[in-house]
């Protein structure tokens, strides 16, 4: 019959399939739960911005989330404050939910067996799933930054921005720095996504994978706060999560930022290797 000619188009192995990735993105972003997570994240700069606007309380530097004392002086700082507020918990929660669901959710629903018998190679399933997770993490970070910038500009004065280092840069440069911060946060979340994907490949219970991923993110930060464990700190995946503050200095001290990016690259490599070795050998019995 008919299929012999079409089979020739097939190239086994890992070539990224744009069509399947688009389908995966529609799945992730079309899901009501994930949309709610994004809305909750977008509400953070709104809450912080409105709270600062309506309150007359003086905030001392060092109180509250980083940069919050500067927002009333320059609205663009709302983006930095909001990102600093969501990085420790809300963003890892959102990414943990979506990443933990990635493989385990399809396994539990049984859709995994139909995807694999299409066939989609298991490596390709992981590549596409991970690609969608990275996009989701980036979308979440940039959403918070964009709402922060927009609302900050609407509620507070803007203009040239005085950085932490005392130097003043243009508004455009400040917006550029906010976007760089979002990009740095996206890379941090790409690391957590890889870990969540690996966890997800080990179970058919998505809730367990989500909870494990979020617990790992929190545990990593707790360990990072214990001075007696300082030998361990450089290896914790959350260690440089807040290093993006350096992007608000001039000139930008790149040392810690580069350390952070390298740390994420290492975690991504290890976690994806674990996910791959597990997922490509396991029996799909769900």
């Amino acid at each position, binding site marked *: *019959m*008919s*299929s012999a000619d*079409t*089979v020739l*188009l*097939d*190239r*086994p192995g890992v070539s990224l*399939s744009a*069509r*399947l990735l*688009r*389908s995966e993105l*529609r*799945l992730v972003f*079309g*899901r*009501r739960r994930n949309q709610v997570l994004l809305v909750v994240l977008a509400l953070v700069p709104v809450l912080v911005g409105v709270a600062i606007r309506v309150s007359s309380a003086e905030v001392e530097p060092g109180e509250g989330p980083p940069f919050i004392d500067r927002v009333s002086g320059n609205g663009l700082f709302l983006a930095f404050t909001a990102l600093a507020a969501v990085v420790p918990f809300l963003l890892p929660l959102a990414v943990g939910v979506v990443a933990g669901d990635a493989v385990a959710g399809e396994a539990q*629903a*049984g*859709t995994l*067996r*139909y*995807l*694999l*018998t*299409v*066939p*989609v*190679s298991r490596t390709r399933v992981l590549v596409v799933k991970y690609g969608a997770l990275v996009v989701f993490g980036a979308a979440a970070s940039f959403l918070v930054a964009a709402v922060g910038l927009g609302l900050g500009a609407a509620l507070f004065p803007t203009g040239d921005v005085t950085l932490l280092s005392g130097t003043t840069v243009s508004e455009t440069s400040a917006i550029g720095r906010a976007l760089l911060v979002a990009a740095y946060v996206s890379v941090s979340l790409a690391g957590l996504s890889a870990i969540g994907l690996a966890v997800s490949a080990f179970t058919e219970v998505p809730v367990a994978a989500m909870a494990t991923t979020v617990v790992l993110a929190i545990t990593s930060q707790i360990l990072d706060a214990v001075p007696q464990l300082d030998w361990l700190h450089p290896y914790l995946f959350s260690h440089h999560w807040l290093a993006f503050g350096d992007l608000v200095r001039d000139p930008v001290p790149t040392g810690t930022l580069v350390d952070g990016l390298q740390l994420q690259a290492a975690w991504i490599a290890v976690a994806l290797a674990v996910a791959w070795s597990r997922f490509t*050998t396991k*029996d*799909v*019995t769900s």
Partner: protein
Amino acid sequence: MTAPVLQVEAPRSAPDVDAAVRTTGLTKRFRGGQVAVDALDLVVPRGSVTGFLGPNGSGKTTTIRMLLGLVVPTSGQVELLGEPVPRASASVLPRVGALVEGPAFHPYLSGRANLVRLDAADRTVDRRTSSARIDTALDRVGLQAAAGKRFRTYSLGMKQRLGLAAALLRPRDLFILDEPTNGLDPQGTREVRTLVRELAADGCTVLVSSHLLGEIEQVCDRVVVMRAGRAVTSGTLEELALLARPSVVVETPALDAALSVLRRLGATAATADADGLRVRADLPDVAVEDVTRALVHADVPVRGIGRSGRSLEELFVELTGEGFDVVG
């Protein structure tokens, strides 16, 4: 109970048969030691509609999962359409339409959106024809009207139909359908039978599993009966019917002599049971006493003779064991 092993044909797969599915010594031992499939030699000849029968827990679904590369065999080989699985999965599975252990789709997507996703996953199809192929598949299973509804609102029968539509998304050479009539009302069951007949008429091979003989008896030309991970019988439905029809059973140590007498009397089919002590012949119009006389005349030692009659269903139960006989 211990079922007699009624061997209609040698289970060792004759290598010359052009097989759409062939397994050799296929075995799956799960962690914990449970043997789900035990040295199974399964042959589904090309162009046949083969029923894969057995009670729940007899290893049918695990076998099907191994055929499709979802479960890695502990030992043994699988060939689909002449190519080894899972090594050649990428090239052979697009030619195989499958329903595995019930339909499973994303609950919050519509039926159509689910098909779009599966089609997007297939790198071997032309995306420009995607929408037309999806429409054809939906029409073929009668689901076009409900295609826009979320999968979670579907009845079990509609879910089953969507599963069949997914198998029909593109032309296939082989269909592996695990319990396709499960959850369907009599009307739906009839429609599935019609569909299977159409697929067979198109030249496709169909392997269709069921725990109910009656569900698939009418569409199959061959059956394989599973019990506790092994194939206890395989053959054409006629061969199986011979075992079930009222037939003369002669207990004798001289099998060949008895067979030739029975054939002379007009038996269209006569076989020896696997235990080598009995022959069975299809002689509806000859009285048992006449058969006895003919055997004695031919000096065939007769230890016992009688008629046996069983329905196919009774035979099936005899082969697979009574219910609640879970082998764990």
